């Protein structure tokens, strides 16, 4: 008897293979190794994880990270919504100008931004000198080495990421729905709050999750603008790995962030396709 022919594997998989092998060998595999370290170093067991309940400093770092991430996400999404709304309602030429400004900001190096904020926000920075010259303040405001500076830098970095998913969801709204609401007698404000905003919910949720995910592991801006005073998880991990060589603690924190990110990504995939989020950059 001849066995029924199995469906041949699609030849397309051969083209997928090089990338898949590279990501598997250099990325996924080593990340599992980090997870393994979190339960084996310095000794097998869950010791690194139970330290979360006994070590005050770890709790404080996680709390700082969460607090900064939440505040930054809320502000970025509100500002992003405002920009996306203006873009959707602008004439095409203006919209293209706005989009180029947004994308330029999207691609400017995080190091260049950080350097600029150092110059702007320092005790003798442009902002403080300007405010003093105008007589608005008498002593310099401490922007640096505290959460205020970190938040300014992070929001500045995150707003473009918030705009793109919201923009995508606004562009998919059928304009007639808004017209229908107005012609049925709703005011502009009512139409916005009861019709428009709910229609963009998926975009807002996707934007918030995306911004939050990127914030969770943010290293450069908190490390430089926080100046050691605002210790967030990513900086703590780098100190553990590069200075004190405590791989176990670092791996445990990395595992926490990783699982958090994956859970949020799963949640996000239920609101919006990942490709759409980044595809917005091509609009």
């Amino acid at each position, binding site marked *: 008897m001849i066995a029924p022919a199995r469906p041949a594997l699609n030849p397309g998989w051969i083209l997928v293979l090089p990338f898949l092998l*590279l990501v598997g060998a250099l990325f996924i595999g080593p990340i599992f190794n980090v997870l393994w370290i979190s339960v084996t170093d310095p000794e097998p067991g869950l010791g690194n994880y139970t330290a979360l309940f006994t070590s005050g400093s770890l709790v404080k770092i996680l709390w700082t990270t969460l607090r900064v991430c939440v505040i930054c996400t809320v502000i970025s999404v509100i500002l992003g919504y405002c920009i996306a709304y203006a873009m959707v309602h602008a004439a095409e030429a203006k919209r293209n100008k706005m989009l180029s400004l947004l994308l330029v900001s999207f691609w400017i*190096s995080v190091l260049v931004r950080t350097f600029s904020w150092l110059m702007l926000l320092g005790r003798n920075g442009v902002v403080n000198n300007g405010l003093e010259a105008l007589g608005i303040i008498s002593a310099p405001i401490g922007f640096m080495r505290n959460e205020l500076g970190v938040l300014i830098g992070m929001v500045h970095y995150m707003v473009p990421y918030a705009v793109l998913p919201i923009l995508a969801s606004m562009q998919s709204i059928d304009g007639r729905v808004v017209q229908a609401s107005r012609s049925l007698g709703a005011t502009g404000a009512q139409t916005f709050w009861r019709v428009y905003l709910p229609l963009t919910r998926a975009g807002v949720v996707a934007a918030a999750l995306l911004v939050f995910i990127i914030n969770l592991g943010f290293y450069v801006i908190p490390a430089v603008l926080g100046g050691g005073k605002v210790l967030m998880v*990513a900086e703590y991990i780098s100190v553990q790995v590069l200075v004190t060589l405590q791989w176990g603690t670092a791996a445990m924190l990395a595992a926490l962030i*990783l699982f958090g990110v994956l859970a949020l990504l799963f949640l996000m995939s239920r609101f919006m396709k990942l490709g759409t989020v980044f*595809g917005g950059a091509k609009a």
Partner: protein
Amino acid sequence: MKPSAPVRLNAALAWVLLVFLVAPALVAIPVSLTPERFLSFPSGELSLRHYEKLFGSPEWMSSFWQSAVIGTASTALATAIGTLCAIGLWRVSSKAGEMVRAVLLLPLVIPPIIAAMAFYRLFVPLGLIDSYPGLILAHTVLSAPLVLITVSASLAGFDARLEQASRNLGASNWTTMRRVILPGIRPGVLAGAVFAFISSWDEIVVTLFLSKFTVYTLPRRMWNGIRENTDPTVAAAAVVLMAVTLAAFAIWVLAQRQGRSTHQETASER
């Protein structure tokens, strides 16, 4: 109909915000032109001395060179495997394929600090720490997903019947790929290459973990300068770093325009 007052107010606010997004980064330009030896804004006179110092310094120049080599090599690799993979997944177009795509996009969304730890642990026993191959491979993994996204977007607008026609006319797989598919998705490939280059050119977190002495990219040297925060040469380097990024970005904008105009020719409805 004239837009209502809140809409116009919001538009004004949006412009202010957009300027807020771009303007602070430009601060590096005046700082780089200061005639002083310390970080400051020029008061009156401008000077190019910090650019002279930058371009005359063997350390900074070697960092430029290294960043360019690593960026070019990882872009070439990432563009090749990312494009092949996008075409493969497009042909497969199944549920399994979409799951594989989600896995391949992970390097974009998993925090770089975790990627840095993973690479570090892998590269120490392999002797790849502080080496070109190590950084090139790491940057390739991080930037290939960008190529996958842009090429997949191009393929979504590519007529699959063209491929069938080519095969029916007797062209081999390879000929079809080279003569039919690749020309059709060129804007996506180019966009992917540009994004891949910028992401490697700017990359700092993974580089901080993987470089020590011999390989010292431009962002790595800038990082030191920013932490010391005294020498205005960093400002000049920041301007050059930004200029290269914006040049790459301009290439992308031009390519998009070109892609759009050929698209309109094909859809000759008007």
